[in-house]
């Protein structure tokens, strides 16, 4: 059975928009921290070393105090995308607003963004490009691109951990679990008291990441199993480490992975 590209792209959009909405609601709950003297005020000098568009222009944008309004605008645009799919309306306008607001916030910096925010932005911009070009080829290539990025993300994360001796002997995972920021007290005690289990759990993390990277490139039933284990992994990460938006950010790319697998093996 051949999967429909539009349905897959809509699924990607809905999950990514939900994740982005959650991230924006969390940011809006921290409004005092966005104001002067708050921890989420933008940092000036770009760590990227300036910009092709001129540092002066960027400084104005970065110092702009309308961050809260733009976050609210991005949230509205993400919700409008979901509504547009539900009511069979055009998604281009809400996506355009979303992309513009996201671009502004990316320039502004200093919002404590992590990998999930990057994945959500990347996914939604890809969907925007597909809808902008509005051809079946653009839809296909956007889905394949998202699947490629998903593969690259898991593969890079897995291989880099595999290459690190501290990850291989379980010390990194135990140390990570010992922190208040990302850790879990019970899991830390368990891993610290059972070093063999720490090695096994570390191997499950990087081995799992490397395996899930192949999900878009294997036949759909195997891909589905791999993606299922990926989903369980993200649920456990949300539960133990509090990285809740990773679940949405990476799950949003799963329909694209399934579509790519289907495209490759349904001929």
């Amino acid at each position, binding site marked *: 059975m051949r999967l429909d590209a539009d349905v897959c792209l809509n699924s990607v959009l809905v999950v990514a928009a939900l994740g982005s909405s959650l991230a924006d609601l*969390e*940011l809006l*709950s*921290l409004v005092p*921290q966005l104001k*002067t*003297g*708050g*921890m989420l*005020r933008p*940092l*000036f*000098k*770009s*760590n*990227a*070393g300036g*910009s*092709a*568009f001129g540092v002066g222009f*960027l400084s104005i944008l970065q*110092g702009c105090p309308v961050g809260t309004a733009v976050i609210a605008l991005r949230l509205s645009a993400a919700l409008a995308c979901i509504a547009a799919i539900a009511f069979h309306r055009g998604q281009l306008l809400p996506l355009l607003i979303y992309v513009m607001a996201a*671009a502004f916030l990316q*320039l502004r910096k200093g*919002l*404590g*963004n992590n*990998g999930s925010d*990057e*994945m959500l932005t*990347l996914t939604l*911009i*890809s969907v925007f*490009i597909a809808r902008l*070009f509005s*051809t079946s*080829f*653009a839809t296909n*290539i*956007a889905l*394949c*691109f998202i699947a490629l*990025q998903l593969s*690259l*993300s*898991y593969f*890079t*994360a897995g291989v*880099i*951990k595999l290459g690190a001796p*501290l990850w291989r002997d379980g010390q*990194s995972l135990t140390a*990570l679990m010992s*922190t*208040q*920021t990302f850790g879990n007290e019970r899991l830390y005690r368990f891993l*610290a008291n059972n070093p063999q289990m720490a090695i096994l759990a570390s191997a499950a993390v990087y081995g799992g990441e490397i395996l899930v990277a192949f999900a878009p490139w294997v036949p759909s039933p195997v891909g589905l199993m791999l993606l299922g284990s990926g989903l369980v992994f993200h649920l456990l990460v949300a539960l133990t480490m*509090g*990285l*809740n938006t990773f679940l949405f950010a990476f799950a949003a790319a799963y329909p694209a992975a399934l579509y790519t697998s289907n495209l490759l093996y349904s001929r």
Partner: protein
Amino acid sequence: MITWVSASIRNDLGVSSPKDLLCLAIFAVWFLLTVIRQLKRRKPRWLGRIDPLRIVPSWRLFGPRPPSSDYRFEVKCKPAGGEGFVWIDVTPHKPRTWRAFGWNPQRRLRKTFNACANSIWRALRKKGKKRACRTPAYHLLAKYATSLSDFAPRSVRRFRIVRRERSAAGTADMIVFTSRRLGRRRRTVAKV
């Protein structure tokens, strides 16, 4: 050669118009840049210049060395009714609760604070205290410390960053950085 490549793009990939070709080029370049980004831990300068929107991500996620310690933020100030100056813990984020599974806004504060602490610590080790006090991270923390509403204006004198590490031997606290006297001479908090 060019004819062969263009025929191959048209036939094998199903590109039927210049619009499709442009779309393919956008995604191909974006993916290529992302692959290049993964090769080094730090973003190459040239990539930073052409990627002001930061849409070329690093997928190293907790590798190769994940965070293994927590930071605490303390300010030296005179509490209301108190006589001398004392160090008070004013870490911007609250401890994580079970609700963080679904709702975890504090992670952004943690991430920002940890990034600032790491940035100051790195600058201190590599370039010395003078340069560490000129980093954007220092300015942000200085502004945060002097804007705390719990204390009277100008009562906060300094801030310090304390690192807490846990191991089998127990928990160890280490002061990794103490700021200069705040609000004196140079206005360290001007541009944040």
